[in-house]
């Protein structure tokens, strides 16, 4: 009833190729963005802003990068945390070593550096495929963290190899409060997500998908595999790099290279898969699930049982439930949370009738 899309005709090419074809969806997105920009910064508590929303947005960006590589271009990669580390430490060194380096420029440059590193580690994708490529990209994960650990220059010779990120300053204004930092992250994430969506729907994305679905056919049709695959690696790593820098600057603030370990890579991959591959909203849903579910379980259980039950049992139980939830999701909805959202939309379209 409310969500009816009958009568919305696409009468021009421009209308036909809109990112969001239905008016209701556009209104919903606008409302969400208005809430995100103008309501949440003023109403949410510091806890929500600084340790829930900021890491969620930053990791959503990383998962978007992983999704570009895995979902659209079909290249399995396990190096996302490594590329995050490149972004974070590149940003730190750019800010440290170049006087008067503006934060936004450093952020974009760190993404570019991550992209270059990504291209290097994407080279094996021309020879190996599928799960074997994932194993090959593991090298990126371990090599990058090892290099940053091994050579003190990257951490400015800190005695314990830990960097303390500089303040985020844009046009002379220091972003220090949780709300301000949230707004920076939100702005960057919105812009880059918009860009990613457009890339995926445009020619670039079609090339990726052609390579994903059958690379031999794509090559026969005149696509350069070398170019397309490396481009996917570069863009994906750019997103991971920027996400990693934001994760370090707006969330952790003191970073050791080992924070970007293989577990983080796995979690980013799960975010992309559970959220829904080759969708724009998927990485956001997946990041929310992987990042927030354990926190939600912990908070609920502490609140419910508190001192009544042995805290060790509560903690162990959380992990069990979290694991079971992932398995159930993969069994009942292998296409991810984004697919659930789509089903809900389809149902809503017919509501209150069954079909």
């Amino acid at each position, binding site marked *: 009833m409310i969500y009816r899309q009958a009568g919305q005709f696409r009468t021009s090419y421009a209308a036909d190729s809109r990112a969001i074809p239905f008016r209701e969806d556009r209104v919903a997105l606008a409302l969400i963005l208005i809430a995100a920009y103008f309501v949440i910064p003023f109403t949410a508590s510091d806890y929500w802003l600084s340790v829930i929303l900021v890491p969620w947005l930053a990791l959503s960006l990383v998962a978007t990068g992983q999704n570009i590589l895995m979902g659209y271009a079909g290249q399995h990669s396990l190096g996302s945390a490594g590329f995050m580390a490149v972004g974070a430490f590149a940003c730190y060194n750019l800010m440290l070593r170049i006087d008067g380096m503006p934060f936004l420029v450093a952020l974009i440059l760190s993404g570019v550096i991550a992209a270059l590193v990504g291209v290097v580690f994407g080279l094996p994708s021309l020879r190996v495929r599928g799960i074997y490529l994932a194993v090959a990209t593991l090298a990126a994960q371990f090599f990058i963290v090892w290099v940053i650990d091994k050579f003190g220059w990257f951490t400015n010779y800190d005695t314990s190899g*830990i960097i303390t990120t500089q303040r985020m300053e844009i046009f002379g204004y220091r972003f220090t409060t949780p709300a301000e930092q949230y707004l920076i992250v939100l702005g960057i994430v919105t812009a880059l997500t918009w860009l990613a969506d457009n890339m995926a729907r445009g020619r670039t994305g079609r090339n990726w998908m052609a390579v994903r679905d059958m690379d031999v056919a794509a090559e026969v049709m005149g696509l350069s595999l070398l170019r397309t695959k490396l481009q996917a690696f570069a863009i994906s790593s750019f997103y991971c790099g920027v996400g990693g820098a934001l994760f370090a600057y707006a969330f952790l603030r003191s970073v050791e290279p080992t924070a970007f370990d293989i577990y983080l890579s796995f979690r980013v991959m799960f975010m992309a898969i559970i959220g829904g591959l080759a969708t724009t909203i998927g990485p956001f849903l997946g990041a929310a699930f992987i990042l927030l579910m354990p926190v939600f379980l912990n908070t609920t259980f502490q609140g419910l049982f508190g001192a009544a039950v042995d805290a060790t049992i509560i903690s162990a139980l959380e992990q069990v439930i979290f694991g079971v939830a992932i398995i159930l999701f993969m069994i009942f909805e292998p296409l991810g949370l984004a697919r659930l959202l789509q089903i809900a939309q389809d149902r809503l379209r017919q509501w209150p009738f069954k079909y």
Partner: protein
Amino acid sequence: MTETREALRGFGRGVRVAAAAAFAAGAALLAAAPGADAAEQYFPIPSSRVGPFSAMGTGYYGGIIDYLTYVNMTGGVNGVQLVWAECETEYNAARTAECYQRLMVGPNGQRMVVFDTLGTPGAYAVINRMAEDQVVLAQYGYGRTDAADGTVWPWVFNAASHYWDQIAMKLAFMAEQEGGVENMRGKKVVHLHIDSAFGREPLPAMRAIAEEWGLNLVEIAIPSPGLEQQSQWLQIRRERPDWVTFYCAGSGMCSTGMTAAARVNFPRDRMIYVTFGGAEEDMVPAGDAGVGTYVVANAVPGRDFPLVQEIERVVYGAGRGNLSNPERVGTVYWNRGVGAAVAWIEALRNAQEMFDKVGQPVTGAEFRDGYEALDMNAARLEELGVAEMIAPYRMTCAEHGGARKFRMMQWDGTQFQVVSDWMGPNDPDMISEMIRESAARFAEENGITPRECPPDPA
């Protein structure tokens, strides 16, 4: 009522066995009927109860909670009852940052005054927020070393001594075994460590001492999680070192170290474990391979200390203990947790007295001053019932490094035998100087102006 509490507390501190039964009954009554106007002080418990660090987390935070319960059951801190909330960190930096914010305000609406992450990654994740949030970071023998410089890090303390002093103490112990520093020249020491900030933390001090003594220092890193150490131990066999200092993390890695050493026939009594890797839970799984291994202690394990016996009797006697297995009372991690909690409570007591708030809760800034005023001299430790369990220490405005002393223990297959008295670095001033330099560099890089400290009267 206050008099009764005073009297009860007096008994609680003491160790008079004769008064024990009457006291327990009184304490139980008191705990059962808290006054409606009872003042409360809130403490956060960011525990790590699952994963490879569960033995550490359950023991350490169990010790803290048991001591808080004990204080509550014996009348609180000048009548102030302690409340706490728990949050699971999984020994993970990001989760610790989340817990830090979640625990910021307690169930009674009070802001937290102290935070103890039990783990270097967690400490680093929150260390830059302390001054802003007015929370004390009470590192207990772990964490950022140069935070021992109170002029740069007014909000960070390390009551149980830091890793640089610890490694210097280990080298001093080796020198003692070898018959003096002069005999150390040309000796080979391997620092085998997990490849993380925690594993590398002691290296600057170690390198400096190695150079001074003419030691041959070999650094070998094990990638996390460290269950696979075969190639590193083969390398050690080739190097034929005289000593190995081992910085392991998590029970799996720590017990594997001993079995792997046994496999290449490296003598276990030439290995020295770090404080946060050598506990009963790490030793027992290694079986006979663990016999002879040295472990450094900043809080000595054992059940013979009066306070441990009191907690066992009062808290566990009433069935209110936090450990699911009461046998773990008196183990390394549990005793360390008690040591940490004793410092919290003494700081709270100081803060109440300093700010004329006896019987009332204190703020973060007041608690900080109370922590800085900690003077745990031998007499006070005796009073608290933890003499010989922890080394006497006092904090000053500039010196936040605690006792700077440790004891060496040796695993005999079933329990730890203490084999040395409290000992510190051979040259503490050298370590202090390095800390000052490192802290000054950090201050300069991050635009912090170190505060001025009055000269220490003592």
